[in-house]
């Protein structure tokens, strides 16, 4: 009898709290989006699963001695996992299109307005009772506009760890929603003629250029924004390993097995932050709303910048590729390509959109560095 009672007391049923049930449903929702809708599944599958695990009563996954506790404190609190992901992303990034058409860096810069406008917006939300975002919170939320998962996780873990779960959910959800969010904005801000603009083929980029480029980016970051060097540095290390041609086995491991292993852990660790007390509050709603705003403003800024550049320069660029400046590699570039093909079936923008796309990665890493330096 004693034993049976003990067994019952140890069941989940006897210990559930409502918040935990809701959060487990949120986790299931993330799994559904990942599996059925193909929303950024590489991170959302482990993250949704982590959300379920962390909310199991009695099990104590995120308490001292629990698996998710170890993963979170070893890898996310220290910043190691996002940095390793960033190294892998660097090893997967080809800067060729950017180097061939460096003007597209301006598009990547403009799209970062989504970040800083959102920072302002987050502070503005404080006018509504119930919201009390500090400048650190606002900065961590704003980086969602960078459309770059590891950057958002890294910054949030440094500036506002208690918001990490909501920020990561918002960042990856909107990255997955890029094909839905961006096209209407892109169409609204451009004319049919602008969308039809064909761009000249890109010049070939030499190996030496590709080797020097990541080193130059690192050097500039060191000079002007040391706070961004963890992110930019690991990204450039990955890219250098990719391009230098003498450490191909390290590069292959960085962009395959190592990034896969770390992605599983990162997802589980981020999911462990999806507990009821940290997620089920009005701030999360604010973060989700601000995230949508951030993506929209970023998209619009990129497109408008491209239109402005066309005013000032003879060599026209298709303003659709401006939308790729938010990063969300390579989804945003594909969206630009698709919307372009609708207007002109012979107009392949994919390669041209890769320029602002990877510029957006650099841009949001730089923006993260600025926020770390000034707010952190």
């Amino acid at each position, binding site marked *: 009898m004693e034993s049976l009672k003990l067994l019952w007391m140890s069941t989940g049923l006897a210990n559930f709290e409502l918040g935990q049930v809701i959060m487990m449903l949120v986790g299931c929702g993330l799994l559904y989006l990942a599996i059925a809708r193909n929303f950024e599944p590489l991170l959302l599958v482990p993250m949704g699963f982590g959300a379920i695990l962390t909310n199991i009563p009695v099990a104590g996954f995120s308490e001292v001695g629990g698996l998710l506790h170890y993963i979170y404190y070893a890898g996310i609190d220290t910043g190691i996992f996002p940095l390793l992901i960033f190294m892998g992303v660097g090893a997967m990034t080809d800067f060729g299109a950017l180097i061939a058409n460096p003007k597209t860096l*301006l598009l990547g810069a403009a799209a970062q307005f989504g970040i800083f406008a959102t920072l302002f917006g987050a502070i503005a939300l404080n006018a509504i009772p119930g919201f009390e975002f500090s400048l650190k919170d606002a900065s961590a939320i704003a980086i969602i506009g960078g459309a770059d998962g590891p950057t958002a996780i890294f910054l949030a873990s440094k500036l506002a760890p208690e918001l990490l779960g909501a920020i990561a959910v918002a960042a990856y959800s909107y990255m997955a929603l890029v094909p839905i969010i961006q096209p209407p904005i892109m169409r609204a801000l451009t004319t049919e003629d602008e969308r039809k603009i064909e761009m000249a083929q890109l010049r070939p980029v030499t190996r030496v250029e590709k080797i020097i480029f990541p080193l130059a980016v690192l050097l500039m970051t060191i000079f002007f924004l040391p706070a961004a060097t963890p992110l930019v540095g690991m990204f450039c290390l990955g890219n250098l390993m990719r391009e230098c041609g003498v450490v191909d086995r390290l590069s292959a491991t960085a962009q395959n097995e190592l990034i896969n292993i770390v992605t599983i852990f990162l997802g589980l660790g981020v999911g462990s932050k999806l507990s009821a007390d940290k997620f089920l509050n009005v701030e999360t709603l604010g973060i989700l709303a601000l995230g949508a705003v951030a993506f929209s403003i970023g998209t619009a800024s990129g497109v408008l910048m491209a239109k402005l550049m066309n005013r000032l320069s003879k060599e026209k660029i298709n303003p659709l590729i401006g939308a790729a400046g938010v990063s969300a590699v390579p989804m945003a570039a594909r969206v630009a390509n698709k919307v372009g093909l609708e207007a002109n079936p012979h107009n392949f923008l994919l390669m041209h959109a890769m320029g602002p796309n990877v510029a957006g990665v650099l841009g949001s890493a730089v923006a993260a560095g600025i926020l770390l330096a000034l707010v952190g």
Partner: protein
Amino acid sequence: MENLQELFIEAGTLMLAGMVFVFAFLGLLIVFINVVLVRLAKKYPDAIVESRATNKRNNKKQEGNAGVSPAVVAAISSAVTQYRQQHSTKK
């Protein structure tokens, strides 16, 4: 509410400083690419035969593949795909 106003001013300054900095940083990169990299590209052009693909992984040696018609290669490629599928199911 004064506190909120202060925060607004801080946020506005951040926005301004941030965007200026981002444009300055990426703008400098444009200059760097146009000035330095373009010259480097002329000075150190790639060798005609780009041989990097050769040692992609595990330093596999590239064989000469001259004399094999593209049709044969296509047929074989699909066979390889088929082979891989068969052999990856077990894993």
